[in-house]
């Protein structure tokens, strides 16, 4: 008995069996998208999908797809306010809260994270009405306030989770646990991308990765090509984005050899999702080497535009967020489907002001207020706002009663968000919380409703965009979600 020979025989048999299984045969025969991508890119022939929105396995993963019905918007900019913005201090004025400030809180207090609840606490900021709609906004957002007629403010948002990590997964993936595809991945899966040189889903990271980590932006069980690419808002948006070869054409030759050798691997292994995605990633990476520097090079932007966004602000965090917002506009101009912005680190633990509410919220607001308003104005001026859905939200709100001396704890029972742009009816207020701003009582809205509405505006029926996994047809909105028709045009 020769152990070496035995090993070789076993390996041979395994190879044979592998080649002969139905799965292997089907995998090779079906010609997964990676193979097609290879051939198309070797021949440089563009692919356009006529596949349905539920995904065709015989086309390039990111080729644009038809919508279920006529869309109002083509892309999304998601302004994520990490940590939970206090609704009673921003978009939801409560006169009774102000009057009763300092008194014991009269309603039943649900359990809070820190269980250090104090009395009723009024807002340290005043509200004023703005625009033709007369929508009230607090002093925290003077710039965005001037855009209220473009906004639909939803005051009756709720979340199922009172803690950041679960609430972030819920907000980003529609599910409270780790591992599901994020919103941006679903949009890529449903719609593809209009730009083959940039990822379809980009996160502009201002400095703070949300609790829950990168799993907020991944593709879960959807093919890996749909996950986010995270860019920093500075010159080197992605590390190593410039080719290093000294001679022109050398990298092209290397990529050609690499493709040929990878094709042989693919022929042997059949359809493997990670492999397909990796192959596509290389092609995309090669094109990004030119596309990303073109995107982040802001020399072409006028001084006036940069000033509008806040590039000359005295506060460095405003300058960071200004860059993110300007890049967001440039990304959507280039056809990127879903852009999310995270917050810069203002040093008060995101918006999560368990203490120092006044200073923390003020600095966070100061960072984002001017750039966001500029983004809305700039999009509108360029005729892009009608086709771009802008969403502003955190993962939950804050309690109207105090935490400790000067903070507010988490509140998933009622908080505010706003939307603007593609298909949104501006100057509206939807839903309401109780007189203290604690819990949503009128037109209670869930994260699933938000997702359903976002899909609807981009021409997707959220109940029809599914992916078969673990034996069922899973969707971003799980088994829930109603489109908020009242805030749509």
């Amino acid at each position, binding site marked *: 008995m020769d152990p070496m020979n035995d090993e070789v025989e076993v390996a041979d048999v395994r190879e044979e069996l592998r080649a002969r299984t139905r799965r292997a045969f089907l995998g090779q025969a079906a010609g997964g998208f990676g193979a097609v991508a290879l051939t198309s890119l070797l021949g440089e022939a563009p692919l356009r999908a006529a596949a349905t929105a539920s995904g065709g396995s015989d086309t390039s993963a990111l080729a644009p797809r038809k919508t279920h019905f006529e869309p109002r918007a083509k892309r999304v900019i998601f302004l994520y306010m990490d940590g939970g913005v206090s609704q009673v201090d921003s978009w939801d004025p409560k006169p009774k809260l102000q009057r009763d400030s300092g008194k014991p809180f009269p309603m039943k207090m649900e359990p809070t994270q820190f269980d250090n609840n104090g009395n009723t606490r009024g807002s340290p900021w005043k509200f004023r009405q703005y625009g033709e709609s007369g929508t009230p906004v607090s002093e925290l957002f003077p710039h965005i306030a001037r855009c209220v007629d473009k906004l639909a403010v939803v005051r009756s948002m709720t979340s199922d989770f009172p803690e950041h990590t679960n609430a972030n997964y819920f907000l980003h993936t529609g599910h409270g646990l780790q591992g599901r595809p994020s919103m941006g991945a679903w949009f890529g899966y449903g719609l593809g991308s209009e730009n083959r040189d940039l990822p379809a889903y980009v996160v502009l990271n201002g400095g703070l990765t949300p609790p829950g980590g990168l799993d907020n932006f991944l593709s879960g069980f959807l093919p890996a090509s749909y996950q986010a690419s995270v860019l920093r808002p500075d010159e080197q948006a992605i590390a190593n984005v410039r080719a290093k070869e000294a001679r022109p054409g050398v990298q092209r030759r290397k990529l050609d050899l690499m493709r040929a050798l990878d094709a042989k691997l693919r022929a042997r292994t059949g359809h493997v999702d990670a492999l397909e995605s990796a192959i596509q990633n*290389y092609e*995309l990476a090669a094109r990004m*080497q030119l596309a990303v520097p073109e995107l982040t090079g802001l020399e072409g932007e006028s001084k006036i535009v940069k000033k509008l966004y806040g590039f000359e602000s005295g506060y460095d965090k405003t300058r960071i967020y200004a860059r993110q917002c300007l890049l967001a506009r440039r990304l959507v101009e280039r056809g990127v489907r879903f852009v999310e912005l995270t917050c810069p680190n203002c040093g008060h633990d995101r918006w999560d002001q368990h203490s120092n509410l006044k200073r923390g919220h003020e600095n966070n607001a100061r960072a984002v207020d001017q750039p966001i308003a500029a983004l809305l104005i700039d999009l509108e001026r360029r005729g892009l706002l009608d086709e771009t859905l802008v969403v502003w939200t955190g993962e939950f709100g804050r309690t109207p009663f105090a935490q400790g001396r000067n903070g507010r704890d988490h509140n998933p029972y009622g908080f505010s968000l706003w939307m603007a742009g593609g298909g949104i009816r501006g100057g509206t207020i939807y839903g309401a919380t109780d007189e203290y701003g604690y819990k949503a009582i009128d037109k209670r809205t869930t994260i699933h409703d938000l997702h359903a509405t976002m899909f609807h505006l981009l021409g997707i029926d959220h109940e029809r965009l599914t992916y078969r996994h673990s034996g069922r047809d899973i969707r971003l909105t799980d088994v829930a979600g109603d489109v908020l028709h009242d805030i749509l045009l």
Partner: protein
Amino acid sequence: MSGRGRPGRSGPLDGAGRRSVYLQLRRNFVNPFFSAFDKPNPVSTRGRRSESNVPAQALSLLNDDFVIGQATVWAKRALASATNEDARIDAMFVDALGRAPSDDERKRCSAFLAEVYESGAKAPRTKSRSVAAWSELAHVLFNLKEFAWIR
């Protein structure tokens, strides 16, 4: 990288040939190569690492100075290991992928080497066209999916 707390000097890119058991980590200067490959942000603990699959990883393997440097190191070793081209190619395939190349693969690599040599590319320090060509081949092998993925 720039910013407060940046160390004044960095060590050599290849760590002077040392293996790392512990690496110093400065949380504002996280190594982008590691980040691209899902090293968790040191802000908090991480129960299970993400396994992402993104173009940033392709860009790292294509353009990171460390990878390019190591390709040259390997190329020099391959050049020293054998005198004929086919033997060197075979050795590199065995090193990287645990198998010999097929005839077609060997031919393609040969053709590639000739093309790079013809292009006149020179290795940075030695100015050797030979080292440059073999470094580029080594770099290609680093970027093969078969190299990166364990079956």
